[in-house]
């Protein structure tokens, strides 16, 4: 019977050690960089044996719904959440996020790209640390451009894009001059069209929150988009989002594609049939001082309901540090380091050599300013979105109207009139007007 106290003692020790270990539940999206991080966390747990990690990976729309429910009810299911630049300013103002002020002395917060940091800060306080950042840019087929007798400038205009699209279109061989997003949604076609409208001098709202779809700048934007897509875009473009266009481009069916910079590694990757023929350029402009590119960052934040704030900040500090970049580089090469967050990465000659699209990504990110996104002044933050809670609903409804215009179900004028009406109504309901 002597073994009973021994067993009880062992049990107590085991219980005590498991009680001292903290488990962080991390909600994240399914993309290559995040999946890679999950595989590399041994480096973190080795130095922090008292912290265990538990992952919840989800498709981003499912994740947004779950995390919003949890954070709004202070459910406390997650200790770290992955959120985008749209949510950060809204949630920070609601006091749903913990300000990140314990990231450590060697974190070097000033090294974060200013455009990205600006989008994740409220009143000068950082509420989320960027894990990877992206903008949008032009990806084009160098061979088709040459065949068309044109040279893509580093910073093209919309008129050049239209001219090139017309010349590259070769319906007989299944080549569409240009592929753009048409699928309805605030993060789908409206991300592209809102960014594009910035370069045309348009804006969602004036300084008094009056919707601006009845202004000539929006008419120019939408008419240009619909005309170009009808002449040079793929069939059924109103159903195409990122993935559909990626599939078309990878199979050599697009002359140009303007979309997220993250696509660069896909179109030059092993699954692409045109990997060695792709060139990059900045998103187009109209000579008004703003380019038609967006700015997005998937960032890590601590919800206010978490009981493990210190451990959570420690992990965030690790995952978004320079050390993590070096870790990825040592294990998987510099080309696989999460892009778009730190200035030092773009000054690193090894990274410049490994990632041919590095300079274009940095220039695209620097060309976007979430705090001054448009030619005329606006009361909101956000390049391809308006950082107010009502935008998800309004943006998706307007996206449906514009998608219908692209599909030929309504005219550009009708779509804009309805967009103006519906936005005005929603803004009145929400108390802005």
């Amino acid at each position: 019977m002597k073994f009973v106290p021994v067993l009880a003692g062992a049990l107590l020790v085991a219980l005590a050690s498991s009680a001292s270990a903290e488990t962080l539940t991390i909600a994240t999206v399914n993309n290559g960089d995040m999946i890679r991080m999950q595989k590399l966390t041994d480096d973190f747990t080795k130095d922090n044996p008292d912290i265990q990690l538990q992952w919840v990976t989800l498709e981003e729309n499912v994740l947004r719904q779950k995390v919003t429910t949890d954070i709004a009810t202070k459910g406390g299911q997650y200790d770290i959440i992955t959120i985008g630049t749209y949510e950060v300013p809204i949630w920070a103002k609601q006091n749903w996020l913990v300000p990140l002020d314990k990231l450590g002395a060697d974190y070097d917060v000033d090294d974060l790209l200013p455009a990205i940091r600006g989008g994740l800060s409220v009143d000068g306080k950082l509420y989320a640390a960027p894990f990877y950042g992206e903008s949008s840019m032009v990806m084009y087929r160098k061979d088709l451009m040459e065949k068309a007798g044109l040279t893509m400038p580093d910073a093209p205009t919309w008129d050049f894009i239209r001219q090139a699209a017309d010349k590259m279109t070769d319906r007989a061989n299944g080549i569409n001059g240009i592929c753009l997003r048409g699928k309805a949604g605030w993060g789908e076609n409206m991300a592209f069209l809102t960014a594009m409208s910035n370069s045309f001098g348009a804006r969602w709202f004036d300084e008094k929150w009056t919707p601006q779809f009845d202004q000539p700048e929006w008419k120019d934007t939408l008419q240009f988009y619909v005309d170009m897509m009808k002449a040079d875009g793929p069939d059924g473009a109103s159903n195409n989002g990122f993935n559909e266009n990626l599939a078309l481009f990878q199979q050599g069916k697009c002359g140009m594609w303007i979309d997220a910079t993250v696509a660069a590694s896909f179109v030059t990757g092993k699954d692409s049939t045109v990997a060695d023929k792709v060139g990059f350029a900045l998103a187009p402009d109209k000579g008004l001082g703003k380019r038609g590119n967006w700015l997005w960052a998937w960032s890590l934040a601590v919800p206010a309901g978490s009981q493990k704030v210190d451990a959570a900040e420690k992990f965030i500090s690790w995952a978004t540090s320079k050390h993590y970049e070096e870790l990825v580089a040592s294990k998987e090469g510099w080309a696989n380091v999460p892009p778009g967050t730190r200035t030092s990465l773009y000054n690193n000659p090894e990274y410049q050599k490994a990632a041919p699209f590095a300079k274009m990504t940095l220039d695209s990110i620097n060309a976007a300013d979430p705090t001054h996104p448009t030619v005329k002044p606006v009361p909101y933050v956000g390049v391809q979105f308006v950082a107010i809670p009502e935008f998800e609903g309004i943006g998706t409804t307007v996206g449906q109207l514009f998608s219908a215009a692209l599909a030929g179900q309504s005219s550009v004028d009708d779509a804009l009139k309805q967009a103006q009406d519906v936005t005005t109504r929603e803004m009145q309901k929400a108390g802005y007007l």
Partner: protein
Amino acid sequence: MARAASTQRKVTVTIVAWVVALVIFFPILWTVLTSFKSEGDAINISHFFQTPWSIESYFEVQSRSDYFRHFFNSVIISVGSTLLALLFSIPAAWSMAFAPTSRTRDIMMWMLSTKMMPAVGVLVPIYLIFKTLGLLDNAWGLMIVLMLMNLPIVIWMLYTYFKEIPVDILEAARMDGATLGKELVYVLVPMAVPGIASTLLLNIILAWNEAFWTLNLTAANAAPLTAFIASYSSPEGLFWAKLSAASTLAIAPILVLGWISQKQLVRGLTFGAVK
């Protein structure tokens, strides 16, 4: 002539049935086929059958996520919620079938009407209740929610089967001195086994496929196969082969169960349909 017309009709019906069956089955077939392709070949529809087949996606899925943990959660939640539902619905269906009142019909219609409410409408209240009771990310919590969700259908199905059982047999049992509990356990349930079995199977399938509550009320510990699939979907990146492999792994167990028990299911679902 009559025979010729009848043969022609049979052939037509058979062809239509095959076409409908193939149309319904095609997405599943395509998912399974896509899961054996590389990511690049999965989107290359024009040369789909010429490109090589591989099981690489299955290895990647298994190395990235713990399939068996999600699988066991799915089994526990679907079987648990079904058993709980039967526990409540057998007495309820008994009372409605054998001791109806003038309001029974209204109650049954009201129960069915609760199915018409969109689930998202009660998400926040349920979430808050779960938070207070500590049931978030907990298999028991999901069993209760799924039981409540499927209860109207289960009661309705059992009611239909119970109505087929002659009330005289139950009365005879009572005459012999059986208590209410004994009448239920030793007389009614054994006689209604085929009906209960098909209800059980259908309820397991419904609970297995439920993707709203299982996604919203779980995080890491109680996440079933629906969360496993959702982790492979992505709006930015073509991961169709891996997504298809994850989907195939998730539906395989329930597909096998459905295949084995199809006779029971069809019999149960059409029971009492022709009178």
